[in-house]
């Protein structure tokens, strides 16, 4: 199906939110949905900013923002207005065009991810049959934005941050993709909506190891602890956006939370059965799960320290990648051997396999040390 040729299989998913006989056909659907997605992403990102600050506050035995509006919910709004109206500084020696473009390049792909996410049954902008592949592909583009920012700032901390970004993001894309493949094998489709529909029991139970790998790899892709090396403020100040101020910085800040939102949404869709759930309306289920995933991410952030750059790379290549491959292999075998029999037995089997694999792998895998003779 082509993006410019709407009308093939979209109609199948119409019983959701929008009536099928909408006047004007799909163009209006597109227009409306783009606006809805923009609003959803921006609102949720702001909500996440607020929620993270509140939650981290509570994890740290304090309160968090509570003075701007009720419970401080207007805090992100105030931040946004303030940041947007701040002076925009452009480094004198940097590459101005690239400097200007970088936040945009980083922001657009993240926004495009939401085009294929089903908010509830069939309610999505475009049900691409390559859905999850599209997500992985598109999200790999924003690395270029990060790199452009680090390069054009003409600052060594920025450059260090950008170098770390590139090596880290490129490495973690592989375990990320492989862990998704397990889900795809189970669901038999790349389309996100079909994946949700295929989850009679959430895939987190069938793919516990895949879920852990995905969470780790995704945390690295979006620079969350313990892999938040790109902007490790105790090491390289603010990383690649050290030199950014004003509106461009606001975009990077937004990108950060949009990425978290994207990951939460995709985890919800792939592993937590998306909008499925009893009693409550599907959209509500969807939101509850997204916030749940986000809370876990914040919880991890509030607890663990950060790994060193070479340890991060070693973790991707020596730990996550082999585990993801083994996981994929086991999943493939299971799908071939027991197609649709006794899913609950498989759940327990897979949990056992996960425990055994982690225990085994811990024997081989070493971190630490790492001095280089110079």
């Amino acid at each position, binding site marked *: 199906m082509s993006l410019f040729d709407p009308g093939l299989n979209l109609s199948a998913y119409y019983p959701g939110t929008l009536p099928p006989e909408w006047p004007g056909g799909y163009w209006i659907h597109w227009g409306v949905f783009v606006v809805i997605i923009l609003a959803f992403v921006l609102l949720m990102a702001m909500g996440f900013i607020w929620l993270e600050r509140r939650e981290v506050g509570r994890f740290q035995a304090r*309160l968090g923002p509570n003075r701007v509006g009720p419970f401080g919910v207007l805090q992100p709004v105030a931040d946004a207005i303030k940041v947007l109206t701040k002076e925009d500084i452009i480094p004198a020696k940097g590459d101005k065009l690239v400097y200007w473009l970088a936040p945009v390049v980083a922001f657009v792909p993240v926004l495009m991810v939401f085009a294929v996410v089903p908010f509830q049954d069939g309610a999505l902008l475009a049900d691409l049959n390559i859905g999850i592949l599209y997500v992985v592909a598109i999200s790999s583009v924003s690395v270029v934005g990060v790199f452009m920012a680090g390069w054009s700032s003409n600052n060594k901390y920025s450059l260090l941050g950008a170098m770390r970004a590139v090596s880290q993001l490129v490495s973690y894309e592989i375990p990320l993709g492989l862990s998704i493949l397990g889900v795809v094998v189970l669901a038999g489709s790349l389309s996100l909506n079909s994946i949700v529909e295929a989850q009679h029991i959430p895939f987190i139970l069938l793919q516990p190891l895949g879920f852990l790998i995905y969470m780790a790899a995704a945390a690295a892709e979006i620079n969350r602890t313990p892999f938040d090396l790109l902007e490790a403020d105790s090491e390289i100040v603010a990383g690649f956006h050290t030199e950014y101020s004003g509106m461009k910085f606001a975009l990077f800040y937004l990108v950060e939370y949009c990425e978290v939102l994207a990951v939460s949404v995709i985890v919800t869709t792939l592993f937590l059965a998306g909008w499925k759930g009893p009693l409550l309306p599907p959209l509500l289920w969807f939101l509850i799960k997204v916030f749940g995933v986000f809370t876990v991410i914040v919880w991890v952030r509030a607890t663990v320290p950060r790994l060193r750059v070479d340890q991060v790379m070693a973790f991707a290549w020596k730990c996550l990648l082999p585990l993801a491959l083994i996981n994929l292999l086991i999943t493939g075998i299971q799908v071939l051997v027991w197609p649709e029999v006794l899913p609950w037995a498989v759940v327990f089997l897979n949990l056992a396999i996960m425990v055994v694999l982690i225990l085994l*792998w811990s024997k081989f895998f070493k971190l630490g040390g790492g001095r280089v003779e110079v």
Partner: protein
Amino acid sequence: MKFERYGAGIAKGMVVTLKHLFRHPVTTQYPEERLTVSRRTRGNELIWDRERCTGCATCAKSCPQGAIRIVTSRGEENDYIVEEFRVDSGYCIFCGLCVESCPYEALFMGYGYERARYRRRELVLNKEELLTSEKKQPSGYARPKVEAALPPQTLLLDRDGVKK
């Protein structure tokens, strides 16, 4: 090191943070809630007792940096009249040595701490501003009599057992 604990250490740590999520935060919401400061607090102001002061300038002498300026003139009954008594609270370090050394108990540390100002020159306290007033109470630093009258200090220790 070997990655030998299989994530058990991380899990333990996460339990600790999770426990804190359900504990009562220790935060004091300052402008609305206030901590009662210590009875001996050395607040960011000095308080001077016009009646008791004899103008002996012991305080000025004991000040490590000469933040107190006293000008006196000879009075009728062979005593000193304090013409000028000035403390620059932007220069004073509130060490309390002047209060300790005052032989007539005429100088007190202030109990208040809200002394921030927009202008540098407003930080300089002259004779009138040093007197005690509604807003300015002396603290019990080196003055046991004042100390006994002040309320006890709020302690964070007392909040330990409080549940949410």
